[in-house]
């Protein structure tokens, strides 16, 4: 729900502060727009009269098989989201509403995983997947992330915040625990799923190091690996090319986010109305 007028921020001082912060936060993206349509020499100066060019985009598009990379990234992110949501929901529900022996210890172990960076375990995970014969597949990129402590923690907190009266009401109507999950908890947690989805998609759309190590071919590599070509070392940073490549790769994400904003708001609102 949006806070009632009395408690919602309205005074102009806050509006200005919020806007200044917003612009500061947007600066890198705004710069990306600027640099990507100027040549390398003009990108680092702010001469408004400098000529615009789309060469950078053309150059980037020609240098890598983008459509394939887009498809791979899309498949990868979809796979991860679906599996993560499923597993985290089930596990989060278990921790929030069930008593079973070893539950607290298990949850502590889950929290521990939050602190273990998958990047440090690259060699071991590569070996595991090599044994399974899965190297160079989209599944290989996703597997180490299927069990998500972040997701389990998030769903546990969310489910724990739901009023127990809803459980009782549903049980009175004869619903079993799984039906309660399906019919009551999951729909109510929609804003959380949206938040989690947003965050997970961003992370995996932009993940680089593990996908680089785990894949070799165009058929399985995501966008980030394909675009790394533009972060070249010896010749210094070419901001025009990097920003053009970035915009091409996160463009869909940004557009989706802009479109989804309405969904976002509506679902938040709907969830609040009781």
């Amino acid at each position, binding site marked *: 729900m949006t806070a009632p007028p009395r408690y919602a921020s309205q005074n102009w001082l806050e509006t200005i502060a919020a806007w200044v912060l917003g612009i500061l936060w947007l600066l890198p993206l705004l710069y990306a727009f600027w640099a990507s349509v100027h*040549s*390398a*020499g003009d990108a*680092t*100066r702010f001469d408004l009269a400098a000529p615009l060019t789309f060469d950078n985009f053309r150059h980037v598009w*020609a*240098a*890598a098989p983008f459509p394939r990379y887009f498809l791979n990234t899309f*498949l990868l992110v979809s*796979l991860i989201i*679906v*599996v993560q949501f*499923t597993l985290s929901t*089930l596990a989060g529900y278990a921790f929030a509403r069930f008593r079973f022996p070893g539950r607290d210890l298990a949850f502590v172990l889950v929290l521990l995983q939050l602190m273990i960076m998958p990047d440090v375990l*690259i*060699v071991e995970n*590569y*070996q595991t997947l*090599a044994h399974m014969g*899965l*190297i*160079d*597949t*989209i*599944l290989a990129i996703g597997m180490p992330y299927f069990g998500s402590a972040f997701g389990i923690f998030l769903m546990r907190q969310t489910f724990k915040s739901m009023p127990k009266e809803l459980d009782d009401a549903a049980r009175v109507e004869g619903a079993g625990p*799984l039906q309660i999950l*399906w019919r009551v908890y999951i729909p109510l947690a929609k804003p959380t799923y949206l938040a989690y989805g947003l965050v997970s998609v961003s992370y995996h759309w932009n993940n680089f*190091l593990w996908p*680089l*190590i785990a894949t*070799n*071919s165009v*058929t*399985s590599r995501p966008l980030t*690996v394909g675009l*790394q*070509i*533009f*972060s*070249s*070392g*010896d*010749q*210094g*940073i*070419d901001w025009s*090319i990097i920003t053009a490549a970035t915009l091409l790769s996160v463009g869909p994400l940004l557009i989706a986010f802009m479109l989804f904003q309405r969904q976002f708001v509506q679902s938040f609102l709907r969830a609040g109305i009781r």
Partner: protein
Amino acid sequence: MRFTEAKAAMRWRGAAAAIGLIMGAAGLATPAGAVEISFYYPVAVNGPLTQLIESMTADFEKANPDITVKPVYAGNYGETLTKSLTANRSGQPPQVAVLVASDMYTLLDEDAIIAVDDLAKTPEQKTWLGGFFPAFMQNGKDGGKTYGIPFQRSTQLLYWNKDAFKKAGLDPEKPPANWDELVADGKKLTQKDAAGNVSQWGLIIPSGVTSHWLYQGLATPNGAKLMNDQGTETYLATPEAIEALQFEGDLSHKYGIMPSGVLDTGTTPNDFISGRAAMLYHSTGNLTNIRTNAKFDFGVALLPAKKHRGSPTGGGSLYIFKHSSPEQLAATMKFVVWMTSAEQAARWSIGTGYVAPRPDAWETQAMKDYAKSFPPALVAKDQLQYSVAEFSTHNGSRTTKALEDAIESVVTGNSTAEVALKKAQTEATRLLRPYQH
């Protein structure tokens, strides 16, 4: 239970189908009976390099129909090394990779590579092995055997802005030939604006990532030899080495011709192109970039001398990985010989701006035409006679880091060169102790 189970099952089936499709597509490439080798390569310079690599490997396959080469783009040099060694540790290494020439000891310590002499069976192959510039072979040899085959190599050059020279009253065709001239020219070229802020610096020597390489551009002309040929000892605190590093620090703190602090290797070519600095020490790899983007007349020259001329070599070499089948090793050898033959080396050099590593490549018509149309390309070759190996030892990343920490502490003004290098030498000696035998 039923819902979730069914949904999960559907998802797994869908995933399995997708995998199958993908693996099937990948598997179509290899014709029956052919030997397949995989080739990891980095991209460190701008340009359509992936396309060039792919067309070169396609040409090789045409000439050798019983061999299939799978080129895999593997990131930058560091990432390519990570990927190669991770794969090697899992028992599935690539057959050949382009890695930094100074990575040799790391690869040997990981038991990853094989000596090329052992694979050179025919007389042609043996002749081929002896046909590279000696300067480029220095980083690739150990214990009398050759492990690294020069592929995309470089030396360091002095870039100078001719227009800036003219404006400062200096002869635009005469770059500084030694350190004294470097400082004198630098002082004339350093210009301040009305508020007292520097608008143009005389010189920039990068001191960020790979600062050890740029430092060698000062140490070598001063006659400092930083390590022994076996890669088991370092000599970082000799008077020559200290003098060279102190000079690098003095350029900012005493002569005022260079900005102080760590100068990022990535932003410095841009500094030169934008006119923020009138002279630049950098790799030949930047020649094409600067040529394309500089809106002024510029020149390249050998690095200024102190006791004599000198420069480190740099760039990447081909390494053949050990744990492959005998057929793969033989096929890889053919591939390596072909990729570094005169025509291919010339082709690669022209397309990337790296220095062709063999004299016979420079004799090809393509190369001669290129050099005529772009004379600066010859300067790098001329410097080879004064060039030495890049700093490289066992446990190389760590000893290099000790050296680079010293360099950084001097350019930031946190330490004198003597204190910093003595500390680095102690650390390097400690790191190399297990390798003394």
